[in-house]
């Protein structure tokens, strides 16, 4: 397949219904932190973007959205071309200026401090970071508590940013400022809003 076809093809077959379906999963995920929601693979984007990651981008981004991409994504002309063609997004080089961040290489991602946390008057002016993962059957299980969770929720993403619990505790302490995380797995997604309290699961 030529570069051009890769860039121009693979969007939602039905943009209205596709975006609605993905958004509902995202909304449910944000409202139920750590719960994994299955989503069908509705788009096909060039590597390294996975179908779920690309579908989230196609659902949330347009020319009013500022987006930062990590090195492994921005290194792919095809991936960037696809994102630009299908969403019209505005790429930014400073993660603190981004409404959204796309991270493929989770272990190497910048510290949470590098992103926008919003202001105390406008805490919504913060970055939503979207992480691309293998899945939700990781070895390290986290216990989540907070709004959206009845008692506790187990959460085991296959990859996590470095020093995750420490970093997340810092993020939590800045509330109402802070970043929110979306996890794009394979045929599934989950989210951690800034309100969620995270601990290592007791054995």
């Amino acid at each position, binding site marked *: 397949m030529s570069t051009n076809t890769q860039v121009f093809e693979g969007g939602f077959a039905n943009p*209205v219904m596709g975006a609605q379906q993905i*958004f509902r999963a995202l*909304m449910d995920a944000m409202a139920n932190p750590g719960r994994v929601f299955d989503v069908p693979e509705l788009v096909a984007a060039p590597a390294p973007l996975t179908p779920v990651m690309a579908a989230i981008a196609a659902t*949330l981004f347009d020319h009013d959205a500022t987006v930062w991409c990590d090195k492994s994504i921005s290194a792919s002309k095809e991936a960037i071309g696809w994102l630009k063609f299908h969403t019209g997004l505005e790429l930014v080089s400073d993660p603190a200026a981004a*409404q959204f961040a796309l991270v493929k290489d989770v272990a190497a991602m910048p510290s949470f401090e590098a992103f926008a946390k919003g202001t105390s008057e406008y805490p919504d002016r913060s970055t939503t970071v979207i992480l691309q993962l293998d899945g939700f059957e990781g070895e390290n299980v986290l216990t989540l508590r907070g709004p959206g969770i009845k008692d506790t929720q187990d959460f085991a993403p296959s990859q996590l940013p470095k020093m995750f619990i420490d970093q997340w505790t810092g993020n939590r302490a800045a509330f*109402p400022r802070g970043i929110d995380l979306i996890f794009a797995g394979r045929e599934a997604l989950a989210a951690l809003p800034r309100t969620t309290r995270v601990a290592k699961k007791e054995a």
Partner: protein
Amino acid sequence: MTELATYNFAYLDEQTKRMIRRAILKAIAIPGYQVPFASREMPMPYGWGTGGVQVTAAVIGPDDRLKVIDQGADDTTNAVSIRAFFQKTANVRVTTSTTEATIIQTRHRIPETPLTAGQILVYQVPIPEPLRFLEPRETETRKMHALEEYGLMHVKLYEDIARHGHIATTYAYPVKVEGRYVMDPSPTPKFDNPKMHRSPALQLFGAGREKRIYAVPPYTEVVSLDFEDHPFEIQSFSEPCALCGARGTYLDEVILDDKGGSMFVCSDTDFCEDRQAHGHCGHLSANPAEAAE
């Protein structure tokens, strides 16, 4: 279908939906905080549910079943009008049953039947800012929220007590969400406030004219403001519903004559009709013979 030809699914264009969807995600992440959004002009007047309609339109899909209530009733004219709007523009399935609905858009009530996980309650909000009547300026109230400076609200409630012996706020009674933001629950009677607390449903609030969206995720602390010596309490009605005999529901007063005659009936028509269908009767119901219960 020709009627539909010129408008997108659920009326809003996709770019508008994306903008609203981004605001909804932020609203859920910051419970009780009012997210500004570029509310659009809708084909119904501002103040008549344009915020709720925009939220519903951004969320709704072909698998949903929509219920619309105004004052607790499915049959009030504005509820009928909004339901018809979504039937026309989204061809969506509608219901009057609280339990069957996946999305319930409401004005002024929370259904009596407890909501369940997975349901979405969309409130139409006229004035989203709980501090607005104390301080009309947006620039000031925004600072007060930022600094968590809610003393003025307590002073206002306490002045009521000093003057009237009661907190004189009976609807749109302010709540604190997850210990942080003071939030306006929309003009629901304070009777409904306890239903918001740790509700399994997702609660979304849309204020179209004032261009704000806010949210309460499931299982979130929602506490009505009060004082140790004047704890929050809800209204109670001395008589049961005249049609279904229910106690402990919110009642509408219906005037029967010009000599002071009136009766009280459930404001939640679905709840009331369901009870009547299951044989419950009140003293004025259609079949008084069965009112022995």
